[in-house]
């Protein structure tokens, strides 16, 4: 089984890297970009085939290490 975890900054947390990306896109002429937020994608290979059990474990991994609840949220996809 594979888990894909998206980690992104919470709304309201300033993202200077995202702001720099938006600025660079503007400089390239992509004026339709109004904002950019930069996050992370983490892929895990997992043993076992119980999706609900895996979701619980991956959720725990996110809370304990993969995200920082002070500044980040996350979402989990299992396949």
């Amino acid at each position, binding site marked *: 089984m594979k888990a894909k975890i998206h980690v992104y900054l919470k709304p*309201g*947390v*300033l993202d*200077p*890297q995202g702001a*720099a990306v938006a600025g660079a896109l503007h400089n390239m002429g992509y004026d339709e970009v109004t904002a950019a937020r930069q996050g992370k994608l983490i892929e895990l290979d997992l043993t076992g085939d119980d999706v609900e059990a895996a979701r619980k474990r991956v959720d725990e991994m996110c809370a*304990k*290490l*993969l995200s*920082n609840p*002070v*500044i980040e949220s996350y979402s989990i996809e299992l396949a």
Partner: protein
Amino acid sequence: MKSAVIVFPGSNCDRDAHDAIEKVTGHKPAMVWHQDSDLPEGTEFVMVPGGFSYGDYLRCGSMASRSAIMPAIVAHAATGAPVLGVCNGFQILTESGLLPGALMRNAGLKFVCEKAPLTVENANTQFTSRYEAGAQLLVPIAHHDGNYFADPDTLDRIEGEGQVVFRYGRNPNGSARDIAGITNEQGNVMGMMPHPERAVDMGHGGTDGLALFESLLGSA
């Protein structure tokens, strides 16, 4: 006071911390490897030094804060004993939950390396009792992720409780309310981005960090 300096893979201020502690106390601190699970018997002061533990992968300090020694440091802090985290050490202490908030990428996106003007906001802590309240210091900073963030309620609370100990005179990194160093609510755990251990000898170009170690460890 018996001291210990924690050493992670990628720590690079551990020996500066060692030398600063030895200079003030006359005793060498124990150097404790991150994979140890206990602090040496009788340890009173724990210093978590600067550097780039685990290459700053994932988030600065995130993996170090989950290393084997951390439960012992958390338990040590819970007894009220002093713990100081500098730079990467500050990041590790926020990641471990010992201090509120988080350290994010500098607002200017650049690594900053300079002498930072600081104001001592609270001289009534065990880390700052040898400073005058409002004293102006020059202490080196060297970081890419020193942009202190906490939600407005947390910021109001730590300001109200006197937990903001150092503030930048000129904000180098976008930190909320110019915050350079904070303590926990109990006042026994402090984290700061500036490096007091790099300002304890005229060979460093200044000694404004010396009083911090003297406050904590006493001195001749």
